């Protein structure tokens, strides 16, 4: 990755973060913390990795993305809007009556959303089913799914991991956003899922551990995922919940709370100065 490309992605990620703030502030509801921790991977996927066409969201041969941690829909919506699947102006209608931006992703209302999710642990199974179907259909497309570290406390992802290995779903890439926080506190204090890489290796995955805020590391990990045959791939990202907004960083309280007007202004001014800095570089 060139420095220019990296900077471009960082600028886009900053815009995606601003969209998350626009959405949760406009909706007066929603989940900024986990959307911000995953903002960089949303950016990387939608601007670099996924084979998609915003003008043809249901293109048969597209890569699929399933947001298994569906509550971080603001992050997905912001990436989709920034990628021009729908207007940026839609973002503040998040969770409003009549808006296509439902509280959790709805594949039948929002262009670019490949699966309805929200109940934790289910999206990863749907992604595995998609990967299985793509293989059966001989489609040359890949399926990506993003889970939370708290989400894998559910039993169902482990059923899905078994299934993915059993059917050798090398077209499936599981991404885990290890932001260390869930509603009740630190993940290891609530119910430890650790060590995540060892567990996934034991389930038959090829595993790559990365800094989930480094595009350089993402590029390497996803390239490796594409090159891996015969087994599913997992990218375990260490991230900071609330990343990019000083007062939201590493705070469990910002899991599912919308910023008020003053908080929104402060967050946006922080992001604007980050953006200015990047653009001035």
């Amino acid at each position, binding site marked *: 990755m060139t420095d220019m490309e990296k900077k471009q992605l960082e600028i886009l990620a900053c815009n995606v973060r601003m969209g998350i703030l626009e959405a949760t502030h406009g909706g007066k509801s929603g989940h900024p913390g986990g959307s911000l921790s995953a903002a960089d991977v949303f950016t990387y996927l939608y601007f670099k990795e996924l084979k998609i066409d915003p003008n043809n969201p249901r293109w048969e041969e597209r890569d699929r993305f399933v947001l298994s941690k569906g509550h971080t829909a603001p992050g997905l919506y912001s990436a989709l809007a920034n990628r021009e699947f729908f207007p940026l102006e839609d973002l503040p209608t998040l969770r409003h009556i009549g808006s296509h931006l439902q509280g959790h992703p709805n594949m039948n209302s929002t262009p670019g959303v490949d*699966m309805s999710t929200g109940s934790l642990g*289910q999206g990863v*199974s*749907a992604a595995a089913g998609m990967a299985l179907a793509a293989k059966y259909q001989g489609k040359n497309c890949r399926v990506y799914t993003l889970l939370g570290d708290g989400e894998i406390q559910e039993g169902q992802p482990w059923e899905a991991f078994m299934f993915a290995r059993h059917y050798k779903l090398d077209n499936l890439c599981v991404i885990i956003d290890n932001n260390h926080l869930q509603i009740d506190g630190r993940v290891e204090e609530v119910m430890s899922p650790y060590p995540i890489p060892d567990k996934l290796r034991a389930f038959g995955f090829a595993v790559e551990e990365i800094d989930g805020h480094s595009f350089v590391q993402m590029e390497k990990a996803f390239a490796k995922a594409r090159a891996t045959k015969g087994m599913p791939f997992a990218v375990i990202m260490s991230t900071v919940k609330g990343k990019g907004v000083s007062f939201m960083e590493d705070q469990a309280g910002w899991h599912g709370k919308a910023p008020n007007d003053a908080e929104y202004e402060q967050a946006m001014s922080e992001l604007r100065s980050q953006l200015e800095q990047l653009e001035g570089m």
Partner: protein
Amino acid sequence: MAETKKIATRDSYGNALVRLGGEHPELVVFDADLSAATKTSMFKKAFPQRHFDCGIAEANMMAAAAGAAAMGMVPFVSSFAMFAAGRAFEQVRNSIGYPALNVKIGATHGGISVGEDGASHQCCEDFALMRSIPGMVVMCPSDDVEARAAVQAAYEHQGPVYLRFGRLPVPVFHHEASFRLAIGRGEVLQDGSDVAIVATGLMAYEALEAGRVLREQGISARVINLCTIKPLDKELILKAAQECGNIVTCEEHSVIGGLGEAVCSAVCEACPVPVRRIGVNDEFGHSGPGGELLREFGLCAENIARATRDFLRRS
């Protein structure tokens, strides 16, 4: 009358899948380590590349089938009713029902006639659970002919369908050549005007037998078979309510949340008439031969006839 041939509707399911599978390459089957019992093993034998065993993991199976449907496949997903509708309820609700994905749930071993396995495996709550999901079609065929037609109709329907099949061989009373099935349409098996007996699944044959007994005793019973529990054939039910004035419902399911309550809801809003519900009375079953359990729990022609006579005397 010659001895009626008996076939378990789970066998009809397996046969129908094989026939449909031959015509439609996008039809795939998911099972959870029960293919020998659900009879998807027949499909597995015919189309091994299209049968996916998910192991004993129903939650993943349901959502994986949803994913396959999102890719344009038509998955039939099988397990016992207890685990398909019960254990995986939330996956069916959120990953199949809410996105309205084209998944067909073929649940076998419904009801108390499961027999020897006992209460843990005798699902008498599946109609209630599946009816409560918006857009879900709920079907419970009565015999081999209807079961095979129901699988075909489910395939042709765009959207989620729950099909309940049984373990116990039951009499085949429909005639293949003249039989037509449409989702949401009931069938009058015998005409009558004193009372309407509305039944689903294996209770339809029992209701028909009860209707014959009642006729000999001077009671004119209209016997209606409802293969589709949802959407309910309200037109047929309301007509029966108006013309017969009394309704008896019969189902191998809890009296809570199933056919009986669906019929009660329909008539009480449009044409209130007394309704007597025959089903499993808010209790668990227990081990024993399926046929004997049906008699013990009053899910037989003899009890339908007796309960109908008592009901008419009182109403």
